[in-house]
């Protein structure tokens, strides 16, 4: 099977004044195409570090001692693992190199949503600007095509387009074919968005679609837009004139409005003009999700996206993620300390403890028939609505500066055997798709 992304034997330590914390101790994870992979575990188990490593966003005191993140046939972490002798200086320059290499990928092919939306939004910029910005950086050719399509289209074109839409009841392929036959690429998503709106009447929709034509731009701007459309990356394009920037951002706002409306944001025309602090927590989180998804990335990492919002808003966002999974082609890694949240959205669930994945399998199996002692105890500790008795896990999580040898759970595990204190259990396949890193599952 080909994976959207895979993490192999990832080991990361943090160098601090209080010692070296071994945060990840051989993490293996495979993300399948189109799935939502849930990642659960207590605080400090390495969930966020795994997400940050995939994004190449590790801080400079993080040493990647081994492992790889394979994406699209290459190892994203290669610049970091190639460091021989660790020093923050050497690490820093490697991280800078990594950032340069990942710049075209981050935000476009892999993107991340963080717990606290305020940290990823710029407080002094309109949210529409911030959504437009990711488009201008990563997908200027799309913006150029959209704009040029409206410049090139004649009233006759849009009249014919409207006819095609009506005759085919808004079929995407029919519209796409028509648009391509007339060299008006970029018009399809605009027209279909209008057609699918349900807050306006037919008459209004028809008007708006007919009006997707006959726009005017200056000849220089047009030439610049055409070179962008021709696939010239924004970095290679001639120094962007102010004018062109303005045109692209305006188009970005336009697409932002369309995209927000598909994310269930009411009154998106108004919302794009607002600043982050004017929005509620739930709305901000939707904006961050929009920024992460607008370039149609292959992989989206969501780190505790609902932990800072209220229960009823959490339910809205979980509903949105489920809906996105059906609609878009991205694959998701959804990190949460709350197993019941993961039960709502995931296809598979991975349980982390002490910087390792101790169990991974299909959602139902991990939740209903877990095989790793830690998973079982974790589930027994969660209060549920039926008010059943719960039990805490005795003992404390190990000090990651000096983790116990052997199985990382051995100081709290009621089944620990001699072997568990000497060897690290490998991951055993216990049934189709279900892997457990515990000696009880084999290798006696």
């Amino acid at each position, binding site marked *: 099977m080909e994976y959207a992304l895979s993490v192999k034997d990832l080991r990361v330590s943090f160098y601090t004044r209080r010692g070296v914390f071994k945060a990840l101790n051989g993490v293996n994870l495979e993300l399948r195409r189109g799935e939502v992979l849930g990642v659960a575990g207590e605080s400090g188990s390495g969930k966020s570090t795994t997400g940050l490593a995939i994004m190449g966003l590790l801080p400079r005191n993080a040493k990647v001692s081994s492992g790889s993140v394979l994406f699209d046939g290459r190892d994203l972490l290669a610049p970091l693992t190639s460091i021989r002798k660790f020093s923050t200086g050497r690490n820093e320059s490697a991280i800078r190199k990594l950032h340069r290499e990942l710049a075209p990928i981050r935000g476009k092919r892999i993107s991340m949503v963080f717990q606290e939306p305020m940290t990823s939004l710029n407080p002094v910029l309109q949210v529409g600007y911030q959504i437009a910005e990711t488009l201008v950086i990563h997908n200027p050719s799309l913006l150029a095509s959209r704009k040029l399509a409206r410049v090139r289209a004649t009233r006759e074109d849009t009249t014919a387009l409207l006819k095609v839409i009506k005759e085919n009841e808004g079929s995407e392929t029919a519209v796409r074919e028509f648009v391509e036959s007339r060299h008006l690429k970029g018009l399809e998503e605009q027209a279909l968005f209008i057609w699918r709106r349900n807050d306006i009447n037919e008459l209004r929709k028809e008007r708006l679609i007919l009006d997707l034509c006959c726009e005017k731009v200056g000849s220089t701007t047009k030439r610049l837009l055409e070179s962008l459309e021709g696939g010239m990356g924004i970095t290679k394009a001639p120094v962007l004139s102010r004018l062109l920037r303005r045109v692209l951002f305006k188009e970005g706002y336009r697409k932002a409005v369309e995209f927000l409306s598909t994310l269930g944001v009411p009154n998106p025309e108004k919302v794009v003009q607002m600043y982050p602090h004017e929005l509620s927590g739930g709305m901000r989180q939707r904006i961050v999700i929009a920024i992460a998804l607008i370039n149609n990335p292959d992989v989206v990492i969501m780190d505790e996206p609902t932990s800072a919002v209220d229960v009823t808003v959490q339910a809205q966002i979980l509903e949105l993620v489920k809906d996105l999974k059906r609609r878009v082609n991205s694959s998701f890694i959804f990190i949460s300390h709350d*197993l019941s949240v993961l039960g709502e959205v995931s296809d598979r669930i991975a349980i982390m403890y002490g910087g390792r994945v101790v169990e991974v399998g299909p959602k139902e199996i991990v939740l209903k028939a877990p095989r790793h002692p830690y998973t079982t105890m974790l589930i027994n500790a969660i209060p549920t*609505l039926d008010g059943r008795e719960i039990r805490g896990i005795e003992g404390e999580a190990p000090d990651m500066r000096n983790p116990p040898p052997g199985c990382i759970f051995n100081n709290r595990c009621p089944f620990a055997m001699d072997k568990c204190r000497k060897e690290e259990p490998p991951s055993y396949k216990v049934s189709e798709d279900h892997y457990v890193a515990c000696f009880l599952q084999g290798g006696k």
Partner: protein
Amino acid sequence: MLIAARNLTKFFELRGGLTGKGAVQAVSDVDVEVREGEIVGVVGESGSGKSTLGRLLLGLIAPTSGEVLFDIPEELLQKYDEARSANDKKTMEEIASKYSITRKSGRELRALRRRMNMMFQDPYSSLNPRWRVEDIIMEPMVSTGYLTGNEARKRVRELLEEVGLPREFAYRYPHELSGGQRQRVALARSISTLPSFLVLDEPTSALDVSAQAQILQLLKRIRERFRIGLLLITHNIAVVSYMSDRIYVMYAGKVVEGGPKTSIISKPQHPYTVALISAVPGNSRGPRVILRGEPPNLVDPPKGCHFHPRCPMVMDNCGWTAKEVAEELEFLLRGRYYGMLKEGSKVVPQGELEILVEGAKAEEVRKVIEEEKEEVKSLRSIYEVREGNGGALVKLMRYDIPGMYRTDEGREVSCLIYRKT
């Protein structure tokens, strides 16, 4: 009755208060009760007024109005309630002057401090980082004059044991403890004077589930052993469901439903409680209700029932005002009914219950309302549309404000659906 709040209200004046900046209506007209040895859960979303209620009950902040009656005999409380229904201010005042915590002073108040205490959410900031565990736990015993220094020091060792920590922890500093251990210390401190009433504000929200489970079990044991009445504040419904005997559900500063835990969880009555319980992840009973929007701004909360803009069951008299209806009407007339509103015309609220649709014909507006009121519920509050000066004049019915209605088995619900006619 250990503690009973009546018509308890707290408005926080915004800066510039009297000059018209308004106030945050954090708690409005709330009645709650906690009996000896009872665990009462308070659930609600962020900003619903839970912490403010807790601080009011302990007298840590002064109410804007209303009473907190402490240790009041059942007969007197009943008498107070009867006087309240009869609007007999004199009897109410007589009882309140004896039992209300806001009327106590000096020595009485110090004795009271010993009998009630609070434990906070954040195990990192609630403990003084420069004090050792021993000093932290001792402090309330000494400052309330409950025990002398030496007696208190001895008692610290017993308390540590009580909360499951080794005695040696007395000499540690907070930064040497994990989050769960800090909450144990905080608990030891808050039970040190053997209080009869304890407010726990999100005691486990900052903890992992495994540490949370330990603290919750510990709390249950402490309650048994010392017969403390606990008010457990949390946004986590499953935690409340595991812990409580009774529950209050708060929304936008009001208690919207109260009653025994089991019956509320299995058969919620208030539409907000229904949605809240159905939104608990992993809950598989019944269909999920996804509410639209978010809790309101409490400076200018919705009129009538505070929940009406999001309520899936909302009726015509639940609180719709001209501003809300005008907004939705305008949205329809500019979108779905494009063309009906002339260029430059507006939909203008006039006062609380009237709207002018400029330049429109009453007949046409009436049709739109008929067509849409199934879906756009605010339109149901319209009872008349007629030709007015310069357009169609839309009139809304006067809304009702829900009271607290008793339903079954000691339950009460603040929703007009349950109003007995």
